């Protein structure tokens, strides 16, 4: 003890680190793993499906998970007219529309970020179109492009544009004045400022926009394929589900729906993976 009289310096030895930091149990660590917890959710839902369907005992209206999986396997392995073809068709329309839509959204955003009238244009147009589902303009695209791939891509493009444009615009708007000043301080301006400072800074919003763009587009696509497939007898996953219903291949209908959901989950997984190595790592997303 050191005691100069008017104060005391406490002389407690520092603790052993192994005493203060204890690892948690492996079970608890597993529970903290998001992937594990989500798998658990899927497992529970799958079990509920399987046993629910067995209990209902109505294979035509509600096939069991196992029957559905068997139908899925058969559809994928079918030598002629396999499910892979339908998946490919859907992904083609979706990715074309997504790329085109994102391009258009980028131009709209650049216009909106740089001019006040551009901002007015974007906000007014998006508010006006917000209540309108993309499928609602399908009759127009039928008139302009006929019953064709172009019609479908037009709709997927359309469905991508507004969610992406709005989110990216909000993202740019949200970049702090300080960060803009910092970029200009380094000598960045115009496009180099956008590419090297604004886009990375707005990445969380951009990701949100791309996500909702993809899912909006995918939803419109599936609905559309059901309509257009009835006229042409061809198309993607939507048409697969519809045509299997017409053939009364009910487990295959469920397999098609399951397939749509799995693709949606895969997209989500890709986004999450990308986020983990970017914005999450940089502390821009918690």
């Amino acid at each position, binding site marked *: 003890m050191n005691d100069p009289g008017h104060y005391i310096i406490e002389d407690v030895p520092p603790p052993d680190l192994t005493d203060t930091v204890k690892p948690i149990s492996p079970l608890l660590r597993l529970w903290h793993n998001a992937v594990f917890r989500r798998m658990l959710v899927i497992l529970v839902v799958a079990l509920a499906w399987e046993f629910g369907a067995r209990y209902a005992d109505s294979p035509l209206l509600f096939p069991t998970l196992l029957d559905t999986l068997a139908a899925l396997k058969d559809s994928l392995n079918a030598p002629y007219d396999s499910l892979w073809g339908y998946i490919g068709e859907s992904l083609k329309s979706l990715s074309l529309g997504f790329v085109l839509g994102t391009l258009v959204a980028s131009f709209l955003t650049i216009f909106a970020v740089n001019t006040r009238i551009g901002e007015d244009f974007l906000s007014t147009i998006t508010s006006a179109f917000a209540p309108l589902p993309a499928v609602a303009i399908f009759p127009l695209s039928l008139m302009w492009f006929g019953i064709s791939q172009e019609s479908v891509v037009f709709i997927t493009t359309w469905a991508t544009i507004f969610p992406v444009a709005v989110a990216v615009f909000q993202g740019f708007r949200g970049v*702090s004045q300080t960060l803009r000043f910092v970029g200009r*301080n*380094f000598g960045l301006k115009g496009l180099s400022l956008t590419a090297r400072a604004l886009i990375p800074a707005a*990445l969380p919003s951009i990701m949100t926009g791309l996500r909702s763009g993809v899912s909006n587009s995918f939803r419109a696509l599936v609905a559309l394929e059901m309509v257009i497939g009835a006229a042409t007898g061809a198309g993607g996953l939507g048409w697969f589900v519809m045509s299997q219903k017409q053939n009364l291949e009910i487990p295959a209908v469920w397999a098609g729906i399951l397939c749509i959901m799995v693709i949606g989950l895969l997209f989500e997984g890709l986004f999450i993976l990308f986020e983990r190595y970017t914005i999450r790592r*940089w*502390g821009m997303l918690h």
Partner: protein
Amino acid sequence: MAGAFHAGTSEPQGIVTQPLLQVQGATIVYETDLARVVAVWRASFDVQRGERLMVLGRSGCGKSTLLKAIGGYLKPSEGVIALEGVPITAPGPDRMVVWQDTDQLLPWKTVRQNVMYPMLLNGVPRAEAHARAQDFIAMVDLERAADHYPHQLSGGMKMRVAVARGLAMRPAILLMDEPFAALDALTRGRLQDELVRLQEETGATVLFVTHDIAEAARLGTRVIVMSPHPGQIKANLDVSRFASREDLAATISGIISDVDEVAA
């Protein structure tokens, strides 16, 4: 005591050299949707190489506006601001700025990348940029955090990175806009000492905006006092003419209360 400071430009010191930075009759006006505000009214002063010039004033006295104009973000509507004789027209890395906000670092780059980035953008070869970043990161005592991302750092550490980034660029002048105001008192005191040491080691020229009399008295080699509405320079004090920092602080306090009386 009254003779120890004087308003306006500094007196010639015998040796005639061009000042590093000259502010001559600069009036800075900004326009909002509602009004046209004169933020700085006919400010004139020089900054010599190697100085730590403190610009002191209450909030609203135009000191940050003045810094932004020197930074090239605003143009004076009257008068001239010139660096090495050349009027300032745009922001540039010869006037690196350290801001108050802790989000001035790029969150997607590590400490080292943040320090290197302005150098790489402005033609410093990668190897040299790396070496210089290494030196300055060591000088601010952040070697262990060099590969961390900004969100993993404390406010004080982020501020050190910003100072290292500014100095590593070897700017003609380092502009600091109330850099320590948002930090806790202990950290602020440490960073103030560090800044003086770094500036003395590197011989950098620093223009430092603050509203804190003690900070101005502690750090400056010259102190400019501004008054608000409109922002005007009221005094320009050469710190070397004062017997002590306490003496300087007392004088500054006196000037500030005189200014307030006039305003009231």
